[in-house]
């Protein structure tokens, strides 16, 4: 019990960031190691096998399934057009003719004489993977993709929706405690990553979508707004697939929350720079948090240490922390003591606690579970 393990979110001005860019299936890598790329450049391409459809050919033709092959006009591997006749049968001296047509364009994958089905496959679906961040190809994963490396500011949010995107950073508020209102959505916002303050409503978010903004970063968001924006109640925190026209990154939590000063400053100091944003969040084993990466082309990634050493060491006296549950939710302070023994809370539960001094305030005692480490 030498130290507590409380992983926090990374918010840092300079980090070396590597991102593996993999295809879902084997394919072709289009770039070489060492090449400098922009976020939108395609790095690898493949074709996903098309969807499979089955046709109950034997029953359509009124024949025994064992005899199906005799009636097939197409064999395995043949290409077929939509509505093309793939099998036919004649009965009663050829007076009655039954036909079986393909419901799709594709190829014949199989003919089953047990089930009497013909299995058809639709044409392959092309899939491309882009570089996602401005940076260099650090490594090529043959047939799979590449590893991109870059150096710059790296900010993890707590929750997000929407997938990967990139754009130019643009501040729409003056301070971290200012909520984003309809009046802030003005000027040319197309292709921009908006830096918000404490809060945004779903109505204002929709306006940002209409204005063509690619992403928005805010301190807090309300669950009622999330429900209204998505059109359903989000049950399990697995996001990233939403197609709502914008990627949202929430840095602090649900409700009105002032964005952490450091996060806001980091973003505002980089207005005009290109940023890569991903709202994908998975809160379960293999946690994944949303992120904002602002590459600095002037810095060589090799000159930056891998980072996160502070977190690996765990909480210590002097560690900067953020309270992540009521009654001090969102406040930032410094650990002043880590008593080893269990202490009772108001709830009467005895838990491991720490004492924290919040900015300019007296010390408070709270459960260790209710803080997260932040980087200075």
């Amino acid at each position, binding site marked *: *019990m030498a130290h507590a*393990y409380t992983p926090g979110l990374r918010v840092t001005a300079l980090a070396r960031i590597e991102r593996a860019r993999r295809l879902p299936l084997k394919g072709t890598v289009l770039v070489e190691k060492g090449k400098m790329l922009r976020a939108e450049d395609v790095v690898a391409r493949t074709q996903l*096998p098309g*969807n*499979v*459809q*089955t046709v109950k050919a034997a029953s359509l033709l009124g024949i025994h*399934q064992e005899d199906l092959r005799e009636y097939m006009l197409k064999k395995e591997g043949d290409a077929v057009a939509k509505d093309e006749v793939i099998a036919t049968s004649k009965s009663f001296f050829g007076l009655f003719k039954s036909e079986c047509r393909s419901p799709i364009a594709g190829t014949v*994958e*199989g003919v*089953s004489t*047990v*089930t009497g*089905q013909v*299995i058809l496959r639709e044409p392959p679906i092309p899939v491309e993977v882009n570089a996602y961040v401005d940076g260099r190809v650090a490594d090529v994963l043959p047939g799979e993709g590449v590893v991109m490396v870059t150096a710059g500011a790296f900010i993890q949010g*707590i*929750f997000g929706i929407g997938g990967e995107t990139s754009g130019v950073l643009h501040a729409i508020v003056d301070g971290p405690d200012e909520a984003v209102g309809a009046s802030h959505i003005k000027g040319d916002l197309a292709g921009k990553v908006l830096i918000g303050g404490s809060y945004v409503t779903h109505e204002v978010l929709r306006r940002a979508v209409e204005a063509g903004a690619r992403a928005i970063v805010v301190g807090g968001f*309300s*669950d*009622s707004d*999330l*429900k209204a924006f998505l059109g359903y*109640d*989000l*049950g*399990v*925190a697995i996001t990233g697939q939403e197609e709502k026209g914008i990627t949202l990154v929430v840095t602090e*939590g*649900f*409700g009105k929350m002032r964005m952490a000063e450091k996060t806001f400053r980091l973003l505002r100091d980089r207005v005009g720079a290109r940023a890569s944003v991903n709202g994908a*969040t998975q*809160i*379960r*084993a*293999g*946690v994944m948090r949303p992120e904002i990466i602002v590459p600095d082309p002037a810095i060589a990634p090799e000159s930056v240490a891998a980072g*996160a050493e502070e977190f*690996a060491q765990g909480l210590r006296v002097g560690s900067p922390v953020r309270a*992540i*549950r*009521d*009654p001090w*939710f969102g406040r930032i302070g410094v650990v002043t003591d880590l008593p080893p023994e269990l202490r009772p*809370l*108001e*709830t*009467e*539960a005895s*838990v491991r606690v720490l004492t924290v001094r919040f900015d300019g305030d007296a010390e408070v005692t*709270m*459960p260790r*579970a*209710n803080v*997260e480490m932040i980087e200075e």
Partner: protein
Amino acid sequence: MAEPNDIRSVLATDCGSTTTKAILIEKVGDEYRLVVRGEAPTTVEAPFEDVTRGVLNAIMEVEELAGRRLLDGERIITPQNGTDGVDVYLSTSSAGGGLQMMVSGVVKTMTGESAERAALGAGAIVMDIIASNDGRLPHEKIRCIRELRPDMILLSGGIDGGTTTHVAELAELIAAADPKARLGAGYELPVIYAGNKDARGIVEERLGSKTALVVTDNIRPVLERENLMPARLKIHDLFMEHVMAHAPGYKKLMAWTSLPIMPTPAAVGSIIQRVAERDRINVIGVDIGGATTDIFSVFDEVFNRTVSANLGMSYSVSNVLAEAGLDNIMRWVPFDMEEADLRNRIKNKMIRPTTIPQNLEELQVEQAIAREALRLAFEQHKSLAVGLKGVQQERTISDTFDQAASGETLIDLGRLHLLVGSGGVLSHAPRRAQAAAMLVDAFLPEGLTHLAVDSIFMMPQLGVLASKYEKAATDVFEKDCLIHLGTAIAPVGAAKEGAPAVKVALETPKGRVAREVPFGAMAVIPLAVGETARAVIEPAKSLDMGDGKGKSIEATVKGGVVGVVVDARGRPFALPGDAAKRIAKLNDWKEALGLYPR
């Protein structure tokens, strides 16, 4: 390996998705007792990607607390040598999301359901049931198999000697999907075939070259009988050989353990079955975790397990809200609260799942959510723990497709003897009465039911231990694992609010105690742990304790840390619709049970 009665010490770990828990059991005189427990974060994920790191960290905490050396570098010392090391080391695992399976059967409510029960009983999460009659088009099923990427597929279908066509169709769907396993890109997906034995050749032809196919006995050889054990054992074998062997660090862990690693829920199921069998009782066990809630039941020796994959107190807390609805959660909160506030609190718990309530208000909200998660999980359990569908009726095989309603639930709350709760929100409730209240409110037991909680959730480790060292497992289960809360007395039926509902007279070791409880109220009669009392329970004429309306019963009731809880709120249970009345009621019950500090 040491013989069952010779072992002096056991070290057992349970690798959960977030925490790895270790316990040390030692023989003291003639009995085995828990000595200490330790825990550490699970290290299956990056940056560690090696489960043994977390295991070693948890063991180091045990070493520190027990003041004994158990590790020699990164090796567990076995057998015990003086005071160093242990005789047996074993482990269970649900890390990395546990065992995730898809099952398939010909008729969804018949072989499909049997396959689901087989997989659940083996400790799996069932991601989907593919059936010939599930209403989806073939390409939709294929897409589903491909996208879900299960760890394993259980294919069943048809009774022995019955149709082979539908089974062939299912095998063709799986072959067309050409599914890839979730862990380890380079190995073939394990598929277990446990259907009509006449279709084995057809299945082998279609799946033999594309998957790691294993064939075992039919889970439904005839309509009237299920035969789930062979399939369950195969699932365990493949879990070890394929799934675990590809999870980070498990090869090493498998080499350390004296017994095969078991999926955590399978181990819990095993200990619950042993208890039910030994004491010849009907038991329900529930484990409410961060992501899932598992319910185990044994009624008349029939074991069932269900897992509600998205009902939990942290990762899936928001899904409890989505499924139960806001009103159902709010009904248990004994004060006024804004909807927006509750919504944000729940979402904040979801995004920071390891936080804990610091003040009373937060605790009460969390326990309100737990009641609903438990209630919903129990509803799901009741609908799956049913008799076999499609039997005992003379019909043609085509008619049996429509017999969905014929299987009735096996769960009869009036005949439930023991209800055991586990999982953080129950096991770590600051007052044990809170755990009792959550269990009673969520499960609504009827008649007489003994209540208990698993003190530190060691049922998984004891489940594996019991497979070879039964005495050690039973000793610890009785003495250290279960915390007896007491007995619930709950008459069924309704009466006028405030009218006399039930008279309870207990002959306790300290003398006679009698209480009359009005309808709509709750009360507690103290009866300590280890004490029993002869009880005479007289329900009012409209209420039933199991022998008929108004009929008195006599029984022996067991005590516990809470005592005898008299629940005269009637069954079916309802809360007042009016907010002020509802809050007043909740506060009355809170007072009666001494749930929270004033």
